[in-house]
C-alpha cells in the first residue's frame, strides 16, 4: 500500500469511478464485462444557459486557490490544487467519468474489459497523438501503468493499482494491452478513470518535457505563480478545444482571488468562500457553479481503543451529531448530510439504510448502559483541509448536550507520529467508490485506517475479498451492502456530511455544467478545458 506523501490533497478531489455502474449501464451482468463506446460524452446535468455560441480563441484566465513553491506538473501526481488544474490541461486518462459520475469510454481507450477476475484488456482508440506528434501506442500505456505502480515514484495511483503486476502487463498489438493481476480485482476500471492516472509517453519524467495527449500543452510554468498552456494543434478530438491559451494563476489568498474575478482580471476561480457567494451573484456578468462533491471530513473513532472499543459508545457518538446544523455551520449549507457511510456516488451505495439523526436521549441512554456517563474524550484535528477544525469544535459543542466533554486539540504536527494511533481524530478524504475507498482506509493493509476497522470477529475482510472477485455487478452490490451494514451499525467513522464544490466564473465563458458530479473544481476544469469556450 505504498501511498504518496501528498495524497491528502489528491484525495480532496480524487474522483471515484464506478466501473460497476458502467457495467450495469452497458447491460453486462456476468462474465467478460465490456465497456465500449460510443456513449454520450456528457451526462444529464445541463450546460450553463449563458447563451451565445462557442467562439474560437481567447486566453482563458483561471485563478486557483492555493499553490506555492511546492507546485509541480506531472501527468500522474499533484501536490497543490493548482497542480490539478495544470494536470488536466495536458494529460488524459484511459476512461473518464461523466458529469453523472458514470465511467465512460470517452477517454483514450476504445474499450476496457475484464476478461477474467484477474485479467483485464485495454484497447486504445486510433489516431491519438501526443503533443509532439508521436502516436499513442500500447508501449505508452505499459510505461504509464508501470510508472504508477512503482512505489519509488510516490504517485497517487500506486495503492489503487496494487493488484496489477507491473512485470506482467503484456502488449498484444500496437493498440491492445492486457493486465494480468496478482489477485482478482474488479476495481481496475475505476482506477483507470482517476484523473491522476494520466497516460504519459514512454520515457516521461517530471523533470523532462511535459508531453501528454491533452487539449493544451505547457508553454511556461513558474511555481507559486502561474502557467500558460497553448492549444494542442494536433488534438485528437476534432474541432476542440476553443481557447488559444489557458493561463492558470495561483492565489494563496482567496480574497485576492475574488477581487481578481470581480475586477475582470480572471475569468473563473475555484472555491469561492460562502460569504462571497452573494457578492458574485449580485454581478450580472458573474455566476456560481456548484458541483455535487463527495469529499468528506470524518470524525474517526478507533474501534480498539477506549472508550470507543465499546460499540455502544460509538453508536452514542454518532447520535450526538446534529448533521444539518454542522453542514450549515461548516459549509454554509453547501453540501448534503451523510449517514456515516462513504462513497455516496457508488451505484452500490445502500441508500435504504435509515438516515441517522441527532438523538440525545438515546445517546445518553447508550452511554449510561456502557457505564460512560460524563464521558471525557480528546479529539485531535489539524488545519489539513477546509472544515476539519470547525467540524471538531462544533462536534464538541453539540456533545455537551449529551453530557460528553470533548477536548479539541488543534495540532500542527497531527500528520506525524501520532496520526492513525489516536483514539479520536478528524481526517479528510476525497471522492472514491466503495471498494477503492476500503482499500485505502478500512482494512488492516490500508494506508490510512484511522478507525482500525474492522473488528476482529467480523467477516468484513472476507466479504471484501469476495467483492473484488465478483464480476457480476448486482451480486457485488449485495456483498457491498453487507459491508456497509457492518460499518453503519458498528463502524468508527462519524461522517456528518459531504461538501459541494462551489466555484465562480464570468458568464462570458460557456460550456460549464452546473450541478455536475465531477470531482474536480469547475466541472473538472471544463473537462480539461475542452468543453468550455468564450461565447460570441
Amino acid at each position: 500500500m505504498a501511498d504518496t506523501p501528498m495524497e491528502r490533497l489528491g484525495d480532496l478531489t480524487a474522483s471515484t469511478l464506478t466501473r460497476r455502474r458502467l457495467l450495469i449501464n452497458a447491460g453486462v451482468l456476468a462474465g467478460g464485462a465490456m465497456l465500449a463506446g460510443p456513449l454520450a460524452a456528457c451526462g444529464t446535468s445541463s450546460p450553463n444557459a449563458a447563451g451565445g455560441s462557442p467562439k474560437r480563441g481567447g486566453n482563458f484566465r483561471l485563478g486557483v486557490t492555493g499553490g506555492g513553491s511546492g507546485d509541480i506538473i506531472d501527468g500522474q501526481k499533484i501536490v497543490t490544487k493548482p497542480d490539478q488544474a495544470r494536470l488536466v490541461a495536458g494529460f488524459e486518462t484511459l476512461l473518464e467519468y461523466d458529469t453523472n459520475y458514470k465511467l465512460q469510454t470517452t477517454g483514450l481507450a476504445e474499450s476496457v474489459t475484464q476478461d477474467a477476475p484477474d485479467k483485464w484488456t485495454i484497447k486504445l482508440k486510433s489516431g491519438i497523438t501526443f503533443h509532439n506528434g508521436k502516436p499513442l501506442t500500447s508501449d505508452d500505456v505499459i510505461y504509464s501503468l508501470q510508472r504508477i505502480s512503482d512505489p519509488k515514484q510516490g504517485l497517487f495511483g500506486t495503492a489503487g493499482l496494487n493488484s496489477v503486476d507491473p512485470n506482467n502487463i503484456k502488449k498484444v498489438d500496437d493498440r491492445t494491452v492486457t493486465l494480468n493481476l496478482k489477485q482478482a480485482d474488479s476495481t481496475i476500471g475505476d482506477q483507470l478513470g482517476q484523473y491522476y492516472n494520466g497516460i504519459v509517453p514512454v520515457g516521461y519524467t517530471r523533470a523532462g518535457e511535459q508531453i501528454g495527449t491533452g487539449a493544451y500543452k505547457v508553454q511556461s510554468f513558474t511555481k507559486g505563480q502561474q502557467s500558460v498552456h497553448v492549444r494542442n494543434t494536433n488534438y485528437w478530438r476534432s474541432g476542440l478545444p476553443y481557447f488559444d491559451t489557458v493561463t492558470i494563476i495561483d492565489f494563496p489568498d482567496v480574497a485576492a482571488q475574488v477581487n481578481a474575478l470581480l475586477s475582470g482580471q480572471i475569468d473563473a476561480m475555484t472555491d469561492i468562500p460562502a460569504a462571497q457567494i452573494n457578492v458574485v451573484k449580485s454581478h450580472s456578468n458573474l455566476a456560481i457553479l456548484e458541483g455535487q462533491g463527495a469529499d468528506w471530513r470524518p470524525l474517526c473513532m478507533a474501534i480498539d481503543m477506549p472508550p470507543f472499543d465499546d460499540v455502544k459508545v460509538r453508536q452514542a457518538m454518532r447520535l450526538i451529531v446534529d448533521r444539518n446544523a454542522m453542514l450549515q455551520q461548516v459549509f454554509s449549507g453547501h453540501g448534503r448530510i451523510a449517514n456515516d457511510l462513504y462513497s455516496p456516488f457508488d451505484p452500490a451505495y445502500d441508500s435504504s439504510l435509515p438516515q441517522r439523526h441527532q438523538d440525545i436521549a438515546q445517546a445518553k441512554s447508550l452511554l449510561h448502559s456502557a457505564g460512560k456517563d460524563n464521558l471525557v474524550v480528546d479529539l485531535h484535528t489539524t488545519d489539513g483541509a477546509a472544515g476539519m477544525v470547525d467540524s471538531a469544535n462544533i462536534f464538541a459543542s453539540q456533545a455537551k448536550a449529551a453530557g460528553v466533554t470533548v477536548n479539541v486539540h488543534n495540532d500542527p504536527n497531527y500528520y506525524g507520529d501520532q496520526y492513525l494511533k489516536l483514539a479520536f481524530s478528524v481526517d479528510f478524504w476525497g471522492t472514491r467508490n466503495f471498494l477503492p475507498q476500503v482499500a485505502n482506509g478500512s482494512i488492516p493493509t490500508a494506508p490510512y485506517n484511522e478507525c482500525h476497522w474492522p473488528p476482529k470477529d467480523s467477516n468484513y475482510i472476507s466479504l471484501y475479498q469476495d467483492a473484488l472477485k465478483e464480476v457480476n455487478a448486482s451480486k457485488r452490490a449485495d456483498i457491498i451492502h453487507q459491508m456497509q451494514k457492518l460499518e453503519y451499525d458498528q463502524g468508527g467513522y462519524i461522517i456528518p456530511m459531504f461538501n459541494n464544490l462551489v466555484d465562480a466564473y464570468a458568464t462570458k465563458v460557456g460550456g460549464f455544467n452546473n450541478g455536475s458530479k465531477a470531482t474536480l473544481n469547475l466541472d473538472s476544469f471544463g473537462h480539461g478545458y475542452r468543453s468550455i469556450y468564450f461565447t460570441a
Partner: protein
Amino acid sequence: MLERPGPAGGPARTGGIRLFILRRILQGLLVLVLVSIVVFAATQALPGDPARAILGRGATPASLAALRDQLHLNQPKVVQYLTWAGGLLHGDAGRSFAAQEPVSKLLGDRIVNTAFLLLVSGVISIPLSIFIGAYAALWRDRPFDVVTSLATLVFAALPEFVVGVALVVLFATTVFHFLPAITLIPPGGRPWDQPIAIILPTLTLVLAVTPYVVRIMRASMVEVLESDYVEMARLKGLPERIVLRRHALPNALGPTFQVIAINLAYLAGGVIVVEYIFNYAGIGGALRDAVFNRDLPVVQAIAMIIAGLYVALNLLADIATILVTPRLRTRL
C-alpha cells in the same frame, strides 16, 4: 589609520565621515551576524517540522527519517548553522526544501519585484511627506494643517490591509472599476511593464508610511521655526524663503530622516501584507508560503534580506542626518 578629527572645516572632516561610515558598516555587519544567529534559532523554534510539513499525511516514521537525513536536519544545530552561514558568505542561500531549487533561483525575480515596489513607494512618499509636514508646520492651525493632521491620524491608525482592501473596493471592484484589483506579473515579466497594475499596492504602502513621516516632519519643523536661530535669521532681515530653506528645513530634516528610515524598513515588513492582498509576486508571498511549508532556507534568506535592509537604511539615515546637521557634521 585612526585619524584625529581636525577642527571644523579642516580636511579631517571628510576623513571623519569616511571613518564614521566605515565604523557603521562594520557595526552593521556585526548586527547581521547576530541577526543570522537569531534568525536561525527562531526558524528552529517554528512549530512543526519541515520534513513532516513536506510529507503531510504520508509521514511514516521511515519516510520522515529518510527525508530528515536528506535535508540534513539530523546534523547538530551548530553544524547546520555554520553550513548555512558559510554558504551565505559565498552568496549561496541553500536549497529550498519545498521547491527543491536553489533559494536564489526561487527568490531572484521576487526580490526585484519587491524592491521595485518599495523603491517607488519610497520615492513618492518621502518628498511628499516632507513637503506636507513642512507646509503644515508653516500654516500651523490653518485649515491645511487641521485637515492633514486629521487625515494622517486616521491613516496612521489604519492597518495597511484595511487601507489596501478599501482601495480595492473603491477603485477596482465595487465603486469604480478602472484599476486592476490585483497585480499579475507574468513570470519573466517586470512590474514596470504594466505600471497601472502597481498603482494600488504602491498607494497602499504610501498611505501606510506617509502619515508618520508627515507628523514627525511637522513637529520637527514647528520646533525649529520657534528656535532662536530662526528668529535670529528673521531678525537679521533675511527673506522668509531663505530662512526656511537654509536654516529651518535642514535642521528639521535630521530627526525626520531617522523616522523615514524606520518607516521604510517597516515597509519591507508591511509589504508582506500588501503583496498578499494584491497577489503580488514578491518576497512577501514567498515568505508566507515558506513559513507554511516550513521551508526554512527560504524563511532564513528572506529574514536576512529584510534585516540587511534595516541595517542599510539606518546607516543611510545616520549619514544623511549628519550631512544635513552642521552641528553633528563638525563634531566628527
